[in-house]
């Protein structure tokens, strides 16, 4: 305990300014995202709520709350997550994921049970799990970095953990979260220095397994491959992705103009959610798309830089985990919308509507910012 105290004090004395580059990129993304939520949701909002600003104003309130949370978290020394907190977070997250699956407790929407609710407040435990997983794995690996090079004692425990989480998520079902979780874990293990001779065969086994699982059921295989030719089922599975491509194509180089999307008029269901990037592409064109991609690129670059400069391995791994979590969600979301991967609902970070998710996102940016304060 004493030692820890000293360390904290010493670090506070060495405390530096946070990474303003990251902060500015995040604030620009956030502002951009709010504008897009307003534009994309207005007709839907008017139709469902009788007022064009319903979703936008709700998102704005969560954004303000998120910024406050981010600033507060950025002032909490990231190393306090390393100890028992990591275990508690992991166990708590697993329990919450189990709770979701108990009939009567979890909340079901569109045939998927992913939410827990307390009064008017609803959130997805999988969101919490992403952070918990990052912190837990980073904490365990950084305790004994060389162990990760061992197969049975190093790699297998994490694989088992991911397996348990994956099973819980797939029971909801929540395919996209499972994928994101897997990518985060792989990124951390990879960065921690796991042996490629062990990682590559494991990866191959995973890919083959996923392929077999997808192929085994005709309907599932059809849904997985519909993105290759959405026009084979215009009225069914292909509908959503075709509408998305209509929006993107309509945008052309410079877009139809902010607020002037036609595809947001019920052609794309809930245009402010997972498919918001399509509306952005329609209204702002390839130019707007480039801007968004550059912003996410800058975000990842800053995140990786922070990881490289982190004072300890825990900091490095947590920074990599958070950067990967946000980066991969952005990539997956853009890939789904542009029909580059199988269709699955993935929100675009900072852009898609969703209050709790936004607050969690900004909180994790807060962690990243705090790590940046400790860079060497």
């Amino acid at each position, binding site marked *: 305990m004493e030692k820890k105290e000293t360390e904290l004090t010493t670090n506070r004395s060495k405390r530096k300014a946070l990474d303003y580059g990251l902060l500015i990129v995040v604030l620009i993304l956030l502002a951009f995202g709010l504008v897009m939520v307003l534009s994309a949701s207005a*007709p839907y909002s008017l139709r469902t709520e009788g007022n064009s600003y319903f979703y936008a104003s709700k998102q704005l309130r969560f954004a303000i709350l998120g910024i406050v949370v981010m600033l507060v978290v950025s002032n909490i020394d990231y190393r306090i997550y390393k100890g028992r907190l990591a275990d508690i977070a992991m166990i708590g997250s697993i329990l919450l994921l189990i709770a979701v699956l108990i009939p009567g407790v979890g909340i079901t929407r569109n045939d998927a049970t992913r939410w827990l609710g307390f009064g008017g407040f609803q959130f997805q435990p999988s969101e919490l799990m992403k952070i918990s997983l990052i912190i837990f794995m980073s904490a365990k690996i*950084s305790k004994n*970095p060389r162990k990760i090079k061992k197969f049975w004692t190093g790699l297998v425990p994490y694989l088992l953990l991911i397996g348990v989480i994956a099973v819980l998520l797939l029971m909801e079902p929540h395919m996209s979260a499972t994928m994101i979780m897997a990518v985060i874990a792989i*990124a951390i293990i*990879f*960065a*921690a*220095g796991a042996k490629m001779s062990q990682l590559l065969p494991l990866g191959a086994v995973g890919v083959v397994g996923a392929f077999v699982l997808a192929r085994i059921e005709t309907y599932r295989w059809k849904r997985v491959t519909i993105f290759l030719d959405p026009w084979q089922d215009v009225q069914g599975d292909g509908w959503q992705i075709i509408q998305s*491509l*209509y*929006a*993107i*194509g*309509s*945008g*052309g*180089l410079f877009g139809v103009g902010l607020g002037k999307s*036609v*595809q947001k*008029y*019920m*052609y794309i269901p809930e245009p402010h959610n997972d498919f918001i990037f399509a509306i952005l*592409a329609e209204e702002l*064109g*390839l130019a707007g*798309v*480039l801007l968004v*991609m550059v912003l*996410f*690129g800058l975000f*990842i*670059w800053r995140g*990786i830089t922070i*990881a*490289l400069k*982190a*004072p*300890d*391995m*825990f900091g*490095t791994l947590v920074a*990599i985990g958070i950067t*990967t979590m946000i*980066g991969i969600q952005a*990539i997956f979301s*853009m*890939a789904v919308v*542009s*029909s*580059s991967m199988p269709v699955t609902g993935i929100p675009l970070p900072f852009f898609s509507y969703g209050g709790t998710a936004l607050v969690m996102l900004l909180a994790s940016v807060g962690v990243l910012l705090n790590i940046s304060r400790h860079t060497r």
Partner: protein
Amino acid sequence: MAKANIESKKRTTILLTIFALVILMLFGRMFYWQVIKATDLQKKAYTQQTKSRVISPKRGTIYDRNGEVLARSISVETVSVTPKNIKDKETAAKGLSEILELDYESVLTKVNKNTSEEIIAKKLDKEVTDKVRVWISENKIKGINIYEDTKRYYPKGAFLSHVLGFCGTDNQGLEGLEAKYESVLKGVAGQLTIGTDATGAELPLNDERYIPPEDGLNLILTIDEVIQHKAEKYLEQALVDNSPVEYGTCIIMNPQNGDILAMAVAPDYDPNDPFTINDDTLAAKWSEMSGSERSKALQEMWKNRAISDTYEPGSVFKTITSAIAIEEKYVNNVDTVQFNCTGSLKIEGWEIKCWRSYNPHGTQSLRKGLMNSCNPVFMSVALKIGKQDFYKYLDAFGISQKTGVDMIGETSGIIHNINDVTDSTLATASFGQGFTLTPLNMLNAICAIANDGKLMQPRIVKEIVDNNGNVVQSNEPKIVKQVVSAETSEMVLDMMQSVVDDGTGRYAQVKGYYVAGKTSTAEQGRGADKKYVASFVGVAPVSNPQVAVIFNLYNPQGPQGHQGGGICAPVVGNILDEVLEYLEVPQDYSYTDDKTNKVTVPDVTNRTVGEAIRILNNAGLKYSVDESDVNAKVVSQIPVQGETLNEKSLVKLYIEGNDIRFTTKVPDVKKLDVVAATKKLADSNLNIKISGSGMSVLQEPAAGTEVEEGTIVRVEFRPVGIDVE
């Protein structure tokens, strides 16, 4: 606490590179959609995001040669629904079905459909749609659209129907000139494009695209409405007079330019209502008939038999045979007696009879042969001509070929191939048997004879004009070829005049004009299926032919028989009489109508009895009234104002407050002369309208019919003792 080692840093950098590469690939993918595939996607998106409404152009008007409207488009409206915008489906369906008098269930089905638009009713009058408008505003109903459309309207009803044809529900021409000139009449549709959301509702702030329609062009026909009316009137009358009879056709042309002045087919139909059968027998069992039976019956009804029915022309064709013989000098003098009719001629073992084999014509000249319509004369002529020359001229006259008239459904007829022609087929062909052609084809060949030997291409559309009266296309008269010399045709016409003056065509005489003509009683089919077509062709005036008429009755079995000279010639005479007068053709010789003075009935209604008596007396008419009070007011009179009567005819008056009608039975006045018939009718307090002279053969109304006193009975008289073929 271990710090990130070198390997860890290396791997972190690899991660950054992977991220960068993936984002770059995604950018490439977006470039593909937004640049390479953009046009294609935009096109598809636009189609999906908009709904287009076709704005119908106004279909062109069809006029007769004097600008009389025969077919035009009138404004109507269409009611449609946008199902997704209708909240209360039941109320909407109920209201619409009640106002538009439609079945509630079928309207409800449409209102419940998952489409962007459903048509509820088309071709509605504005009175009806105004009711819908009031109902919409009173009940604040959304999702019901009303827009303008046009409907084809034929103001004269069943008039010229086989020529005009008619239009379908989408205003597309289905028959007749409407179909033939579809591309000219229809115009170019316009379009209104409106942006919609996925539910079909119109988008706010979305610009509409409007492409205005281009109206169709108008047709000016060669048809003369007045002449057409006369042709139809006489044709319908002939069908009544010769009942039972299958049908009749009548074509009137100007031989000098090939203009079709009238083309009538009876029975006719109303192009405003073309799907209602015109035959009572068929109409009675209509509901039991199958779809194909109905469609066949309708096709028959719509058929323009003047250009699509082929028949064996019979003796009318002797004019053509005469022309060939004279042109090729097989007969140098038409008045030289050089033929002998013994009642029949034996050729190749076939005994081919003359129609008057019971009383052979004996020695004959060519002229006499035509006047008597003697078959052996023409058989002998044809055998002289030989098949090579005969066929050369058939081809030149266009016999059994399409005339090329700008109409739909013209057929060509059938004729033996020249290689199959034997002496007997050649002999029968000389008097118009053994091959078929259409009535128009026959008349057009006759027209060549009436036009100094020049064969014209018949035309029915004179000009195509736009709405500002500019002529877009003018169909000039077209000479197909000089078939025979002017001298030959003059000679044939002269012989044809003899036919009317003193031959089988005497009933076609017109006072004041010299008429050329030829009768025909043509056999159709052989043996048990044998039927007759009675036909007459008349041309007048001979000195400068302006009108040529062909009048055919198919399978007439009425009391007057089936001979063209008997039942068709008098009708053609009447038609020529009226048409020549209407066209103000100068008379060949001065002739004023019969000695009895004609009086036009004045209007005496709303006058006192005293005044009425004075007016009628001054007009030379008699009166009858069941009232002694000279101040009583006359409320009706029979005959009505404007009728033409002989002097001293009776006008029956009825006065206010005493409307007891006096009726009488029409007596039988057939087989009487004019004086006796007039007296017999006058004894029954009826008036007479005389046509023709000689012995009465027809009366209308028929004997025994109960009519009001003063009614005019039409009586037709014919000269007696004429061979009519």
